[in-house]
């Protein structure tokens, strides 16, 4: 019999699973990326620290860091959609998630990054929109911003290879 926890406990459980999923990737931890959750939509958060700078004279966040953050946000949104589905399915799949055993991560096929504004020394946010999920490939758009959502600092478009059923 599947248990149905009260809503608050359920939300806390999901937050904990999201944090665990984020933390399984060492590079996420190095950059200090974390995710907030509203429904099924994730918002990536990249707190500023000196080690993320590319140009110390401006100063500006390294373009590779901003690009990484966009790609991480895309991969995490795809992984989270998958994990959320397994949690809701219940049973054995949900138990594996609860035990911290996550499905294989999607793989990047190609990405295009547009850099619109320099990343200033402050927290950066990012949100991904899944444009299409097929059996094998997902297409996502991701935007990163700082002070104003309407003034993105960078955007990413990309195709990602979804793990095969039963793989891993």
């Amino acid at each position, binding site marked *: 019999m599947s248990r149905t926890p009260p809503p608050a406990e359920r939300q806390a459980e999901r937050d904990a699973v999201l944090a665990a999923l984020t933390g*399984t*990737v*060492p*590079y996420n*931890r*190095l*950059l200090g990326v974390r995710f907030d959750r509203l429904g099924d939509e994730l918002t990536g958060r990249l707190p500023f620290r*000196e*080690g*993320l*700078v*590319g*140009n*110390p*004279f401006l100063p500006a*966040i*390294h*373009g*590779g*860091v901003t*690009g*990484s*953050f966009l*790609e*991480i946000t895309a*991969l995490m949104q795809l992984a989270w959609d998958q994990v959320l589905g397994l949690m809701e399915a219940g049973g054995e799949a949900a138990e594996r998630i609860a035990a911290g055993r996550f499905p*294989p*991560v999607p*793989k*990047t*096929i*190609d*990405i*295009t*990054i*547009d*850099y619109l504004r*320099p990343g200033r020394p402050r927290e950066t946010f990012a949100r991904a929109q899944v444009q299409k999920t097929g059996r094998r490939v997902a297409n996502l758009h991701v935007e990163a911003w700082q002070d104003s959502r309407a003034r993105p600092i960078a955007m990413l478009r990309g195709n990602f290879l979804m793990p095969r059923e039963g793989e*891993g």
Partner: protein
Amino acid sequence: MTASDDDSGPAQPGKLPLTQVPPDGEGEPITGLPFSREIGMRLHQAEDGVAVVSVPYDERLVGDPETGVLHGGVITALLDTACGWAVMASAASLKSTATLDLRIDYMRPATAGEAVFSRAECYRLTRSIGFARAVAYNSDPADPVATAQGAFILDRVAEKEA
């Protein structure tokens, strides 16, 4: 990044050794870009519009904990840095450059446990824009981990400004 073309010594903004090729092939640490320094990037070559940059294998940079493969974002940072450096190494009159866009195709996972290199070339320079392409590889550029192509906006040294 910013550069003048007449300095040797550790690679850092304002002191890019554009003509100096490290003799031992091990390159030199990129100290002037904090994030590049943090992940241990090294500059192996930067002259005539060509740059070679590497990032060592490091467990902190892993993207897939099952396989130990480096995160795609690390490859992005490497290719971006190599392309930017190639652009800077293509003309003495450049003060700095910033990435406008970058397209990356991933051909295969980087080999776990091995350093990744990127060789980049600036193949066209206009008054405002540098066009660069790059390949990332473990040991053989003909067996690429990823390829990239990008446009970089140029900040030129003032020539006839008052």
